């Protein structure tokens, strides 16, 4: 049951539905009675995406079709580069899916600036990424999901890590009609480290689902996860985080935090943080909070002269800023800051 298999077969009955435990908050079958026809090829030129001209190389995927070649995503041992990876939907009321591999050889270092750009309404898109990091390789992945109004979009990523590899991810999304961004990490321990962060800023009737799963299979691995969300209007945020520490994966250090602010009566956040620990000697913690803005802090700020809207914006920006600060690639951090400020002050 996945969007990809449903799109391949054209059978909407194969879509995941709320009867599937992992999809209970992101029902696709109930939403899509009929799948739209395949997206046509598009020759239209690409204008600048969320990351502008950062990085050296751009890999574009338009309506599910690769433009140019994707060899920039295969790094030989020791290679280092910054790549923009853009998934662009240019045709309304159509559907497409794509699969892509990203491979880092020993000690390679990739900064991946990934974006989902919806330039048309009513499309259905699926992207599947297969990422592997050899020993000592490092990947920082920063994702801006800007699927359009009316889009149904699923992005799922499988990450396999070698020993001492470093994988860091920051997802930034303002949702879509229905959107899911899923990350699965096979964590070998062995000195490898994972940072899995996310920010969702939702309004209107947008829906965003950040689902992660990390399986610690060996000793000496770390995972540090921080997700923050702000929901307004009638939007809905979903966070599903699962960390599994297999038997024998001792000295694992795994931390998961999810904090959400609900700023309207009709917005909703559903969260399911899970730590499944089968090893004895581990340090694991998770924290999950869902609440409103601190009214006392707001009064304090207003007493110092800040108008209410500005006080709110400052508090919320600071709230999500704690995630954005963790982005290591500085130009992307600036993009992320501007992205958040634009959405919070709109």
């Amino acid at each position: 049951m996945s969007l990809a298999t449903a799109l391949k077969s054209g059978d909407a009955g194969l879509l995941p539905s709320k009867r599937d435990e992992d999809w209970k908050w992101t029902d696709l079958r109930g939403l899509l009675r009929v799948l739209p026809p395949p997206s046509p090829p598009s020759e239209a030129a690409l204008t600048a995406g969320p990351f502008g001209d950062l990085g050296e190389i751009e890999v574009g995927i338009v309506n599910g079709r690769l433009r140019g070649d994707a060899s920039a995503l295969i790094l030989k041992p020791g290679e280092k580069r910054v790549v923009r990876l853009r998934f662009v939907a240019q045709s309304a009321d159509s559907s497409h899916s794509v699969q892509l591999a990203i491979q880092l050889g020993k000690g390679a270092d990739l900064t991946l600036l990934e974006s989902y750009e919806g330039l048309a309404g009513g499309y259905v898109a699926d992207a599947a990424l297969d990422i592997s990091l050899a020993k000592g390789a490092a990947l920082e992945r920063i994702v801006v999901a800007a699927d359009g109004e009316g889009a149904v979009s699923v992005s799922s990523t499988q990450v396999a890590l070698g020993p001492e590899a470093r994988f860091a991810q920051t997802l930034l999304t303002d949702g879509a009609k229905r959107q899911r961004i899923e990350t699965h990490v096979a964590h070998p321990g062995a000195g490898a480290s994972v940072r899995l962060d996310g920010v969702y800023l939702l309004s209107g009737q947008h829906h965003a689902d950040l689902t992660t799963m990390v399986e610690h299979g060996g000793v000496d691995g770390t995972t540090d996860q921080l997700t923050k969300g702000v929901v307004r209007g009638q939007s809905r945020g979903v966070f599903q985080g699962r960390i599994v520490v297999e038997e024998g994966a001792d000295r694992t250090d795994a931390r998961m935090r999810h904090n959400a602010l609900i700023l309207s009566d009709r917005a909703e956040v559903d969260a399911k943080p899970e730590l499944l620990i089968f090893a004895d000697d581990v340090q694991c913690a998770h924290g999950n909070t869902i609440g409103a803005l601190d009214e006392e802090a707001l009064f304090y700020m207003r007493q110092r002269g800040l108008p209410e809207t500005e006080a709110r914006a400052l508090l919320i920006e600071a709230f999500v800023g704690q995630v954005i600060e963790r982005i290591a690639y500085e130009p992307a951090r600036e993009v992320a800051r501007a992205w958040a400020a634009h959405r919070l002050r709109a």
Partner: protein
Amino acid sequence: MLSVSNLHAAVDGKAILKGLTLDVPAGEVHAIMGPNGAGKSTLSYVLTGRHGYEVTDGGATLDGEDLLALEPNERAAKGVFLSFQYPLEIPGVPALTFIRTALNAQRKARGEKEITAPEFLKLARQKAGELKIDFEMLKRALNVGFSGGEKKRMEIFQMAMLAPRLLILDETDSGLDIDALKIVADGVNAMRDPDRAMLVITHYQRLLDYLKPDKVHVLAGGRIAVTGGPDLALELEREGYDKYARAA
């Protein structure tokens, strides 16, 4: 400058202030003392416009203008500053960023031009030095992880930076050791000015040793029970609030 007349206020429908009348002219320091539960903090919150404090009768003006009709931030821009008994932590917002944003918001509301970054930093360094505040601390999120004494000093620092006209100090002495108390008192004294009024709310007399108020009011039962000179504070320290609390 501040004129409170026959002020009645309720919290959750319960009457707390019951006809409080008080005048604080420019250039003067007035102390408000009183037993716990007399309405001292309620007075400070009503004057600054906190949500949930309902004025049921009477009023308060600043330079003749109706204070109670204004939003909290409008009152701040008019020059009302409350030093909180329990200053709030503002995660993720560096103290300097916060104060600069507040100062510029006030200036904008008054139709003045914004302070430039170099001007602001120069002023901040000077005031931090006077209050013996480590400048590095001002780069940290406001009040997050600060000790009680540091938070109070940060309140006085903000006061010095914002240069308000009506200062309300709500139990600013609580949680301070004697050295910190002296630094805070020096900071407040440095702000004494013929064009500035201060209302010092305190349970104990010790802060008043340093601040030397012009007048001391005893707040009991939701109104001013008695007004006197600095000697009144000493008498209260000796004899307690019992007779006023009973009379109320």
